[in-house]
């Protein structure tokens, strides 16, 4: 194409806008990260490089508690949502169309369609009643809510992986007198594993990021890292928030890069 000296797919100005968009996406994030290394508290001027705000965040018990809580919830939510999403994906792929299939799809993808604020309000009302009836105030509510909205994110990559696998290996195993459980354990699951890992990682990231639903569901003293940050934004803002954000950002990017590499490995195989 290029030997014609005129590239058909080139549209004037598009590359400029695109580069501008990429810059606009990353400049704020880098600014945020840069200020986390600023000595000055005022944030309006650069006072020199330091790691003080990281040390301060690290020694802040509230931050420590919130971080731990975020990780516990995200871990539980990732495990639960991935487990049930794997079962659901096995149930809804690679078989003849059945009655109620669309209904199952709609329910599984519901968290992607309903505005978060509406679900948050609904859970606030619902759990308030349950709390009165049972007296239980623990993290269970948050774990349940997070597990629910993580399900579609875990389900989609697992389903995509399953759809790319044909049934011939499983049929072969069955022909060789493997029990259904053995077939699943030794044939289906190993093949499915990359999809399951991808699903679990997405679920983990999604849970870790949630603000709105957590803000409404949490009981007193149950701040996660994002709701703690939201609370701090109302008060005097210090670069400590930047430090926490940057740390969280690095964690997310590390997980995503791993996800990206796993996926690429899959495509190659």
């Amino acid at each position: 194409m290029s030997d014609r000296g005129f590239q058909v797919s080139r549209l004037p100005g598009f590359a400029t806008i695109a580069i501008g968009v990429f810059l606009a996406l990353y400049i704020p994030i880098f600014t945020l990260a840069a200020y986390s290394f600023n000595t000055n508290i005022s944030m309006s001027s650069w006072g020199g490089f330091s790691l003080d705000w990281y040390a301060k965040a690290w020694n802040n018990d509230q931050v420590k508690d919130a971080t731990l809580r975020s990780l516990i919830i995200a871990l539980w939510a990732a495990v639960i949502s991935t487990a049930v999403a794997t079962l659901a994906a096995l149930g809804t792929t690679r078989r003849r169309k059945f009655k109620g299939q669309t209904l199952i799809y709609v329910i599984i993808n519901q968290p992607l369609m309903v505005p978060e604020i509406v679900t948050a309000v609904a859970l606030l009302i619902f759990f308030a009643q349950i709390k009165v009836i049972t007296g239980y105030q623990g993290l269970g509510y948050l774990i349940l809510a997070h597990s629910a909205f993580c399900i579609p994110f875990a389900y989609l990559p697992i389903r995509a992986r399953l759809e790319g696998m044909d049934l011939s290996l499983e049929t072969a195993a069955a022909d060789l007198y493997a029990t259904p459980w053995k077939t699943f354990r030794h044939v289906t699951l190993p093949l499915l594993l990359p999809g399951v890992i991808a699903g679990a990682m997405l679920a983990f990231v999604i849970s870790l990021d949630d603000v709105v639903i957590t803000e409404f569901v949490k009981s007193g003293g149950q701040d996660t890292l994002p709701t703690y940050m939201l609370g701090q934004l109302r008060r005097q803002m210090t670069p400590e928030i930047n430090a926490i954000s940057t740390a969280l950002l690095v964690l997310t990017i590390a997980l995503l890069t791993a996800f990206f590499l796993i996926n690429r490995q899959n495509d190659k195989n």
Partner: protein
Amino acid sequence: MSPAEEAQIATSARNAWYLSTPALLILLVGAVGPLLIVLVYSFLLPGKYGNVEWGFSLDGWRGILFTKDIFDDTLVLADAHLTIFWRSVKLSVLTTVFTFLVGFPTAWFIATRAPKARPIWLFLITIPFWTNLLIRTYAINEVIRTEGLLNTILMKLGLISTPLQIIYTDVAVFIGMVYVYLPLMVLPLFAAIDRFDMRLLEAGYDLYAGRWQVLRRIILPIVKPGLIAGSILVFVPSLGAYVTPRVLGGGKQMMIGNFIELQFGQGRNWPLGAALSMLLLIVVTIALLVYVRYANREDTNV
């Protein structure tokens, strides 16, 4: 069909349901079911200190548009509410339009990179998408706040003498929402362009079409499904936005999401909050249904 085959199909369907049950149960308790309670609450009376009192009332729904006059109890149109609805719709539409205007060239750019470089550009768009929404909103805050990056640069350049007051305005919320939701527009647009056979463009030019004609007659029709999907993906969360207007609007420039929260907090009017939630849900559902209908029609046409 033999009875054996029929039995096999029935077993398969039953297994499908058994396997899906755990996921469905969690979703019913943790997401779908409670929505029905919101519906019920929207028809109840507000409690004095929040929550509700049992008793049927349409006040929640009426409260969406009207307030009672304090003096003579007549119903008057609630201007404050209308302002909030108008702001929500206006900002969501503007966000959708603007993300398309800049998102389309971006998606085109990614789709026309060499096959090896494409995943990396795509990855660069995906990172902000998966990054914590609050962090991204806060990052924009760093740029546009009074002592932020933008004002500092403009003042240093001598273009302005006093800082621009962007933060805590509609403009701030708009910039924030564009920033936060842009990847949701770029990704489906990219998917649509990626499937597109570039030789069609060549054919267009060979037949003496100008750039503008090629854009309008060939490119836009092909991009349309991506545009519709992207618009839904941007419009729906924009309309229900809560974090971005709260952080960048500073509590004054409320959108529906914040207005709903207010009813469950200081407003102490749970039925109104429930009715507003239902209204938002209805609007979003209509948008999704229109989309599904359109998508199905596209499928049958191709």
